């Protein structure tokens, strides 16, 4: 099945994809904070997604709450690391984009059936990264709110208080 073939293409070339993604991430103005971070750590995080893409795209990962738990924590961590949230969001968007660019580069998709499978894969990848970005944003904001509530009881905490 072409879907499995495309996923395998990404997983089998996770190293190359990670290098490309790292190069892009650390040379862009929109993600400049990542250039200051330890290369091994950044690459490890990227590689983790590409090398196990099939696992991450499976419904079980979402239903079990694992994506929520992991990426809410990632959001919290990025806040503590002082990386602006929009840079974190861009990093995940780039991660997603490189998957598709690689597929277009390496695999010639021809028949209607192959295109249908490619569309299915693309949509699963988009859905996965949508969930990631949502939970990362949530985790980041949670940390921000804790700090706001504990230290600065002024306008900021009033503004971020939930309207219950």
């Amino acid at each position, binding site marked *: 099945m072409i879907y499995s073939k495309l996923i395998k293409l990404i997983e089998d070339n996770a190293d190359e994809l990670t290098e490309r993604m790292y190069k892009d991430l650390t040379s862009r103005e*929109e993600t400049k904070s990542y250039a200051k971070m330890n290369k091994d750590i950044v690459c490890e995080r990227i590689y983790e997604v590409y090398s196990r893409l099939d696992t991450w795209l499976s419904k079980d990962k979402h239903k079990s709450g694992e994506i929520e738990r992991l990426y809410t924590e990632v959001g919290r961590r990025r*806040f503590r690391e*002082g990386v*602006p*949230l*929009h840079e974190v*969001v*861009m990093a995940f*968007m780039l991660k997603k*984009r490189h998957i*598709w660019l690689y597929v277009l580069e390496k695999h010639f998709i*021809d*028949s*209607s059936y192959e*295109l*249908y499978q*490619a*569309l299915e894969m*693309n*949509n699963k990848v*988009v859905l996965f990264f*949508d969930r990631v*970005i*949502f939970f990362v*944003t*949530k985790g980041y*904001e949670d940390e*921000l709110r804790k*700090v*706001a509530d504990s*230290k*600065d009881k*002024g*306008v*900021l905490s009033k*503004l*971020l*208080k*939930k*309207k219950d």
Partner: protein
Amino acid sequence: MISEKLVALIMDNADELTQRLCKDLLNREETKGYKNLNKDIVYERVFDVYSRLDSWLLKDKVKGEIHSHYTKLGAKRFSEGIPLNEVVMALMLIKRHLWLFVLEKQFFDSSYEFHQALEFNNRVVLFFDRAIYFTTMGYEEELRKLINKDEGGIISKFFK
């Protein structure tokens, strides 16, 4: 061209799509902040995206225009007190409903049509990626202004 056909499909059915999206948006836990907003305003904002989709996708909207529009949107949502994660989810839902509608109404047959559908899908994804990115940026900027107005407490150290 099918991608123009798909854009026209969305624009011609903008009202129906907007109704569907609003119903979803106002019923979800992840976007409960929108319940506090005036329904007509929420409708208007969503309708603007669907009814002018060609303007956002096909007429080579300069990246700067998306930047300007969505950073302002982020700033506005901040002033309305809607959590950023809910704003992000709302934009994702707008995108998702768009594609679900296309799948529901359009039957793709030839490999040419599938190619076009793929192209359309990627343009939509790219547009919403930019929208989400700039909205996040605009929201954060407002937050930073507010933090800098505060007495330079612990939060400002994080955003230096």
